């Protein structure tokens, strides 16, 4: 039995789909952010898999993943700052209650 590219793509797809499901159904903002992290993580894993199996002599996918991790960290920090600010203004983090972004 060989571990080829398909074996690695399937868990990545399932992780992405779980992220989409959480993104649509969750109503706490932090939980939505967690689902977003799942989606991003699956994209990173895909970069790595395609890099390793299809172009093993290059390292473009790896560099893309490195930058993507850095950008995801920045994005999460800003999103959490915004969430904490919203919580301070409104008192909860339910996405159905946030109907205007005016402070």
């Amino acid at each position, binding site marked *: 039995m060989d571990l080829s590219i398909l074996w690695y793509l399937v868990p990545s797809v399932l992780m992405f*789909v779980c992220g989409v499901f959480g993104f649509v159904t969750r109503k706490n903002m932090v939980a939505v*952010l967690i689902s977003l992290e799942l989606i991003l993580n699956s994209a990173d894993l895909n970069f790595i898999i395609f890099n390793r199996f299809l172009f093993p002599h290059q390292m473009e996918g790896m560099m893309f993943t490195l930058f993507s991790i850095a950008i995801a960290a920045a994005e999460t920090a800003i999103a959490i700052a915004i969430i904490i600010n919203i919580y301070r203004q409104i008192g909860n983090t339910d996405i159905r209650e946030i109907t205007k972004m005016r402070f």
Partner: protein
Amino acid sequence: MESVGNIVLYFIVAIVMVACSFMAVRTRKILRSATYLLFVLICTAVFYFQLGYQFLGAVQIAVYAGGIMVLFVFAILLTRRPDENSNDLTSHRRVWGTICSVTATVLLLLAIFKMPVINDLSLTQVLGNGEITMKQIGETMLGTERYQYMLPFEAVSVLLLACIIGGVVVARKR
């Protein structure tokens, strides 16, 4: 032919990863959701290690599992009243989410299994191309020639600075 250890490791990590990502979006308590996300990130790091990207696995553990998870736990603890669950989901949203995710699963799996495979190498064959050394990574990241990434590197540092300032401005007390 793959070694038995690699196959066993693959199955353990894949099953734990899929199960934990499912639990992360289904569990009622938000702090547990963050913990399951941590397990997913660590499993991804194990995949990176298994695919031969040791540096990237270390970055994944240090930045994601170390840094971002702390941010998440802080955010969760700061934005809820104690003993509060992330309570039930509205029904039409759950229907929409199920429709979206089932459709996406079917389409993506169809796309994957129908895709013309460029090469059908196994893991041992592609890993035979040699390790990526730290010297190579550093030269790729800080070089200015073709396939080298000095400019994105600097752009990311500016982005992080902007992110620090933005975070302070957004979250400070008025």
